[in-house]
């Protein structure tokens, strides 16, 4: 038999949770129509755990991470990720294009989608991403960068 016959071509492996990670990254990774601005270092703000247990471990706190500002074809987008007990609990845009009605229309569906997809990426619970080698600039717009800044 031909050696290839034992290698069944798989249908595309669809991982519901993984595929939905794309939304988050697409917002982060859309080809900019202008050169991407140099991203600022992620800013991490920690707040103490709301009352809760007396253990007082740092991990139990709520952490918000401001992602890098990314140029999308719609304009600059920056997201804030809220992490509680090591889980993403919320994603909000702290900067998004809103200059005209079209921007506002896009925001009305793109931003809620970003949130649900980031939460889904969380449920795929991947630690890291393998892909064709990225450049330093490419890294800033990658899911790996988002994973690194979220520090999960």
């Amino acid at each position: 038999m031909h050696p290839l016959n034992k290698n069944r071509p798989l249908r595309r492996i669809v991982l519901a949770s993984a595929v939905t990670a794309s939304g988050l990254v697409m917002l982060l990774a859309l080809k900019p129509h202008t050169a991407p601005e140099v991203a600022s270092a992620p800013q991490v703000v920690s707040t103490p755990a709301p009352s809760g247990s007396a253990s007082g471990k740092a991990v139990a706190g709520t952490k918000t991470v401001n992602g890098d500002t990314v140029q999308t074809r719609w304009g600059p987008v920056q997201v804030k990720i809220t992490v509680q007990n090591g889980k993403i609990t919320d994603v909000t845009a702290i900067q998004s294009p809103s200059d005209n009605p079209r921007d506002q229309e896009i925001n009305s569906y793109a931003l809620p989608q970003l949130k649900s997809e980031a939460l889904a990426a969380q449920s795929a619970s991947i630690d890291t991403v393998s892909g064709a080698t990225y450049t330093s600039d490419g890294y800033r717009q990658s899911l790996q960068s988002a994973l690194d800044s979220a520090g999960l």
Partner: protein
Amino acid sequence: MADTVTDPAEAPAALRHAEEVMGTVFSFDIRGGEPEAVRTALDHAVAQLHRVNEVFSTYRDDSQVSRLARGELTLAECDAEVAMVLELGAEAEQVSAGWFSTTYEGRLDPTGIVKGWAAERAAELIAAADGVSGVSVNGGGDVQMFGTPGAHRPWRVGVSDPLRPGGLAAVISAAGADELAVATSGTAERGAHIVDPSTGKSAVTDLVAVTVVAPRLTWADCWATAAFAMGSREGLGWLESLPDVEALLITAGDEVRCTGGLAARLG
């Protein structure tokens, strides 16, 4: 030992670091370990990466490898690592029947093996630090992992979908393996010159990405590069023949093919 009942904070402490070097970014994720020992190991690993870049870069005229290629240095005059990497490269060239090579256009160019080897060595160095329970080093998209990220959880690696930017084609789990590497070669690859050894010209491939899963990144990276150049038919057959190697190949026609044992690694 103030053990309380299943505290989520029982997971080992994590130290994250991203370092820009070799034209890309290396991401470190270290779990557990004695904090000072971990910090020292990380600093050492990062310094080593910069040193590797200085010695091996083909973009720098004054690197040892550039000077070796021009005949200004002998191999014996270079750092010991140069001979070591060239030997690994020669082995990869032999195993892949020339599809992987450290020579490009008649000139010495070990770029294709250096990054994977360097990331593997960095992960190894950190894994040896006191009390470290898990480490993952991602060198620009190629990952070496040791141990586990938590007591009841394996490392999990998303594989980028080359045809759906931002999407994942698969998730690889390191469950049951104390060491695992995942390397991907693709059309977006930089730094690796892919040549058909039979023609000496740029390889014509029907693939857009090859992801190789193997215990060590040096080899996973070389095999991904070689199989990508071979194309889906020859590449898959060849990868099947290698021990301890599993792979996922994606063609330009959006067909996914994989080695027989890959399913056991899909998370």
